[in-house]
């Protein structure tokens, strides 16, 4: 029996397609289904060309095949509005849900910070926060693992072309969700998130600034070591994740300036913000697969 877990992707848009391309290289996850709602959509067409089974009947079109195709994990790249229903239906059949929408029904997952804990607990729904969260929360955590952080602030700057209509319609959700995860996962007592959309051409690469205010005087050496180690952890799944400047210290302020270049699979390289979401989502599913293969977790039983 193959160690790979079989997967379905819901939402054949930019994110779903990029995820599919990354998944085809994975040693742990095998893409089987792409789920859409429009039979004529480019995304479903692309998936068919890549020999992936498709349905245009939404998640309901996938449900009858879950057991026969042994689908174990699903990635939801649709919208917060439909995620809850998608998740409920698939969880009932024992499918682990990786949520790339801002719905955040399940716990936030930022792989190098808390993924292994989620995998060991066999969380059936994990949420990937936001692109800005994936790019910055590892840095907040790198500081808070050394000493208490009173306040964590992140500023994500993304190219206009890489921000879709869903995010634009509800940009507050980005700031709210990211700030929550800066606290909840990053370990800051209080979190703040800012997003800036830049329309420059050629498009700017995603960049992120992270400011932490530590409770006591920052231990410069320990924090610098921790930050560099964390950058390496993220680079394992996002090779284009770079610390451009910092950590710099100014009183109790610790600041890091990051740049995120994507792999350029389906999404262009400047769209590091989208790439880090798909890469983190896939990394999450892979960890579940690794834990299942090693026997440390038991996937829901199937007849």
């Amino acid at each position, binding site marked *: 029996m193959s160690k790979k877990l079989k997967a379905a992707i819901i939402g054949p848009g930019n994110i779903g397609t990029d995820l599919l391309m990354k998944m085809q290289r994975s040693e742990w996850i095998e893409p089987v289904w792409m789920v859409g709602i429009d039979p004529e959509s480019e995304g479903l067409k692309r998936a068919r060309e890549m020999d992936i089974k498709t349905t245009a009947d939404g998640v309901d079109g996938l449900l009858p095949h879950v057991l026969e195709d042994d689908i174990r994990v699903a990635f939801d790249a649709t919208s917060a509005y439909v995620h809850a229903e998608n998740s409920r239906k698939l969880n009932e059949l024992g499918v682990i849900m990786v949520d790339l929408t801002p719905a955040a029904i399940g716990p936030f997952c930022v792989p190098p910070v808390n993924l292994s804990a989620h995998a060991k607990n066999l969380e059936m729904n994990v949420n990937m926060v936001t692109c800005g969260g994936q790019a910055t929360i590892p840095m907040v955590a790198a500081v808070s693992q050394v000493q208490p952080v009173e306040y964590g602030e992140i500023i994500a700057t993304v190219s206009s072309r890489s921000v879709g209509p869903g995010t634009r*319609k509800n940009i*507050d959700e980005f700031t709210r969700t990211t700030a929550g995860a800066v606290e909840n996962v990053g370990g800051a007592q209080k979190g703040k998130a800012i997003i800036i959309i830049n329309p420059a051409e050629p498009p700017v690469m995603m960049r992120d600034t992270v400011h932490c205010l530590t409770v006591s005087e920052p231990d410069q050496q320990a924090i610098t070591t921790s930050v560099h180690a964390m950058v390496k952890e993220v680079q394992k799944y996002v090779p284009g994740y770079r610390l451009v400047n910092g950590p710099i210290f100014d009183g109790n302020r610790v600041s890091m300036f990051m740049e995120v270049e994507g792999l350029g699979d389906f999404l262009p390289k400047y769209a590091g913000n989208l790439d880090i979401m798909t890469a983190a989502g896939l990394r999450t599913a892979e960890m579940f697969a690794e834990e299942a293969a090693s026997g440390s977790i038991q996937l829901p039983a199937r007849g």
Partner: protein
Amino acid sequence: MNLNGKKVTLHDMSLRDGMHAKRHQISLEQMVDIATGLDEAGMPLIEVTHGDGLGGSSVNYGFPAHSDEAYLNAVIPKLKNAKVSALLLPGIGTVEHLKMARDCGVNTIRVATHCTEADVSEQHIGLAAKMEMDTVGFLMMAHMVSAEKVLEQAKLMVEYGANCVYCTDSAGYMLPDEVSTKIGLLRQELPTNVEIGFHGHHNLGMGIANSLAAIEAGAARVDGSVAGLGAGAGNTPLEVFCAVLDRMGVETGIDLYKIMDVAEDRVVPMMDQPIRVDRDALTLGYAGVYSSFLLFAQRAEKKYGVQARDILVELGRRGTVGGQEDMIEDLALTLAKDRGLI
């Protein structure tokens, strides 16, 4: 230019844009002192918030002396006739901030986006309009795109519910012809019940000239700031503008001597530095860079030894937009490294 008999609503920025020049440290007493002075002078609308709008309190933009809520609660009950507006930049502030401002008695909400990104304002403009507030769309850095693009984006804001749209010269880069073209097109193409506004900066010394061009082209609201207190070389100095409008026969409803006194006796004494077109403010206007970057670039110059002018020109070259203050220290570090300074 004949503006005789025209009417314009002036809108004071000293307690919001002026917060940039004061590093957001204006005291509650100073706010009340200036706002009541303006009220007595007949200023119809006064903006009060963190320089970067509601929720701007941050490491990135600066922590203010007091919260937006504290400022609004201090100022609004003291005003007899003037109304108060609040700025909100989606991506920084949220609808929660908007509701708070409304509960404090804010009359006018101004939702600001970069001039190409109006579609991030839908939820905020929509809610403000639904709450029947005076709802303004504010297109920043409007010098970076064509008049047609500004119009396209303005139409989105109107569609979401804005009853007034601003063409905003955040960098103080525009010359009068550009103002005429952009305001003129907006006036020509938008429904007559939608007002057009202009917000200028004085970085090329064009604050007054541009504002006059805006009125001639159809702007019904013009922003300025008493004593010019604002980011960069400041906004159009309102006491000067009032004198000019008075001579040109434009109705503002403002008492010229009273606003002159507010400028001289209340605002100038609290300035941390003279608000003037110094070398760096001039660079902002010349290179088309967001005005509030000024003090950040000057601080980076002190800290890393790279000239503020070099930093600002490079920021302009990279197409930075409003809110990207974090780029300044990042860029200064990179330039200092390249030059072997650190």
